[in-house]
């Protein structure tokens, strides 16, 4: 096979010889397997410990367990701090191969400890916002200090819950009356905020490679909130323009940054919105009308997508 390729490539003899030697000596790396195993080890250990504690809660005593979890978490963070590389606004290489996993373990343990404290002792009482606010601040800070996108995702999730909890009036939650307006608007604002953070980051040149994580949260939360406003709240007049703006923004982002992902996602969400609008507002037509709509709209979208090269200005490196 290799010989066939070399022959087809018609390289100079020295280059071909170099490649032959390389392919013959190529090391078989187990790195990926080991990392995955490490990751599963962390997950299993976490699940097992959590379950164990749940089972033996009568024998051990709560404080001992909390202290134990706290020690693990602190040890992980201590390790991370001892081995950390100097802070930089750009991407930073992991200090050791398992650095990221230990950091992740520390964060998860922290969450378990906090949840435990709240569940058992109501440490934060009714102030649920605080329960999510603390991990949010901690994780976001850690993400920037250690340049870790996994922890960043945890932090953004904590932020989303914090915003959701804080902005939703408590009595609505307890009365089980789900206030969709607040949630929807919060979602849109949150999505917009994620985009803003991305732009500040890119403008100020701080952790530009975090953009994708932020925008990924932003695009899905923002678009789903817009669609929810259209479909669940039935306020297309307000939310459809918002959806259009969001789609337009992400199309522009895809065009300037060469991102195929955001192009496809924006087109898909936009199509769902337009289709809903048409099907909902044009009832009572013959079935042919709807089928023709799908026919022509799909042709349009396919033409647009197949000509992506003309739309996207440059391809991301």
């Amino acid at each position, binding site marked *: 096979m290799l010989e066939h390729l070399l022959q087809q490539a018609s390289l100079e003899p020295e280059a071909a010889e170099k490649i032959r030697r390389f392919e013959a000596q190529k090391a078989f790396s187990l790195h990926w397997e*080991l990392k995955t195993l490490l990751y599963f080890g962390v997950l299993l250990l976490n699940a097992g410990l959590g379950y164990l504690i749940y089972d033996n809660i009568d024998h051990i005593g709560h404080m001992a367990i909390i202290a134990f979890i706290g020690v693990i978490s602190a040890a992980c963070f201590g390790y991370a701090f001892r081995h950390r590389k100097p802070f930089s606004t750009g991407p930073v290489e992991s200090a050791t191969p398992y650095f990221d996993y230990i950091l992740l373990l520390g964060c998860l343990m922290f969450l378990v400890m906090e949840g435990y404290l709240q569940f058992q002792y109501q440490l934060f009482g009714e102030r649920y916002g605080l329960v999510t606010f603390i991990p949010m601040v901690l994780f976001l800070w850690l993400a920037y200090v250690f340049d870790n996108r996994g922890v960043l995702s945890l932090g953004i999730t904590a932020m989303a819950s914090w915003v959701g909890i804080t902005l939703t009036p408590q009595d609505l939650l307890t009365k089980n009356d789900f206030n969709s307006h607040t949630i929807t608007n919060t979602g849109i604002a949150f999505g917009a905020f994620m985009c803003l953070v991305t732009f500040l980051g890119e403008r100020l040149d701080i952790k530009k490679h975090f953009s994708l994580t932020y925008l990924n949260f932003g695009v899905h939360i923002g678009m789903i909130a817009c669609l929810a406003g259209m479909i669940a709240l039935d306020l297309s007049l307000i939310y459809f323009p918002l959806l259009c703006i969001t789609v337009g923004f992400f199309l522009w982002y895809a065009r300037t940054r060469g991102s*195929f992902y955001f*192009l496809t996602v924006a087109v898909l969400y936009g199509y769902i919105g337009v289709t809903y609008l048409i099907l909902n507002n044009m009832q009572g037509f013959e079935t042919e009308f709807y089928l023709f709509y799908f*026919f022509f709209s799909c042709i349009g979208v*396919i033409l647009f997508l*197949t000509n*992506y090269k003309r739309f996207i200005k440059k391809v991301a490196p």
Partner: protein
Amino acid sequence: MIAYNREWLDALLIRTTAHSWHKNGLLSNEQLVALQEQKPAPFYSPNLFIRIGLGIFCLILMYAVMGLFALTGMLDSEAGLTAFGLFWAVIWIVLLELWIIRSLHHYGSGLDDMLLYVATSTFLGSIYASFPSWAEPVVYCWVALPFLVAGSIRYLDRLMAAAAFGCTLLIILLTVNEIPKLALYLLPFSGMAFSATVWWWVRKAQQRVAWRHWQGIFVIVELLCLPTFYASGNYFVVQQVGADQFNLPQPPIGWFFWSFTFGVPVLYLALGLRLKDRLLLDIGILAVAVSVFTFRHYHHVMPLAWVCTIIGAVVFVAAYFLIN
């Protein structure tokens, strides 16, 4: 035999290989550029996300078109339904061949994939619709198999190849299941024999330069053989099938299946390291996990919490030291 331009497929293979050589510092920039100019492969193969988007919209489009024609009232009889399906299957294949592949040069663009899938499913569906209700399941498989095989050969499609593999396995198992008295004993061994044979053949096939274009298909089939082989003799699977089909709470020669359950993962790991085969190794690791679960299903040695904790700790520590 292949619908796509073979010269370009060859060029594509060299271009991707050259890229990896270049990344490893074996080719200079000039060499890479020269090679790419020498070997053009002007396929239309967009990015994965575009491919997914195109696939989704192509699917909606095709069903809208078929829906529009269905409204004309062709579907009022069973024969009409079959004729309708066959007609559209032919239309889609002709479109795929002459327009999408021949003139637009699509290759893995989402459009060619989806056209193939919809054509095949419409075709098979319309044939199935004309079957009498007493037709055996194995007949359905026999009808589908040639088309799945032809589709995977002609369009180098991995999903088709996977379906063809599953279809063949099903035919064998359904046939063996009909053998009176011996079915219970033969079922696991026929599964093992089939997977082992296919695996051996696919490994050989991957070495053949003449078959280089089907490399992706061979890898997928190899990937499917390994779990199928393991599952054929896994104690849990054998026991469940025995209880389900033959009302046997305990399968015969249990010791054999137990040793198979634990032996095969070890075999996979050893072979994987020996042959430096990532597929074997990864599936071996998964098989170890499945074996542990199988064991736990029958023997409750300790509570789940302890198992998780201990295994997690062991795996964590082992991986930590191995990385070091």
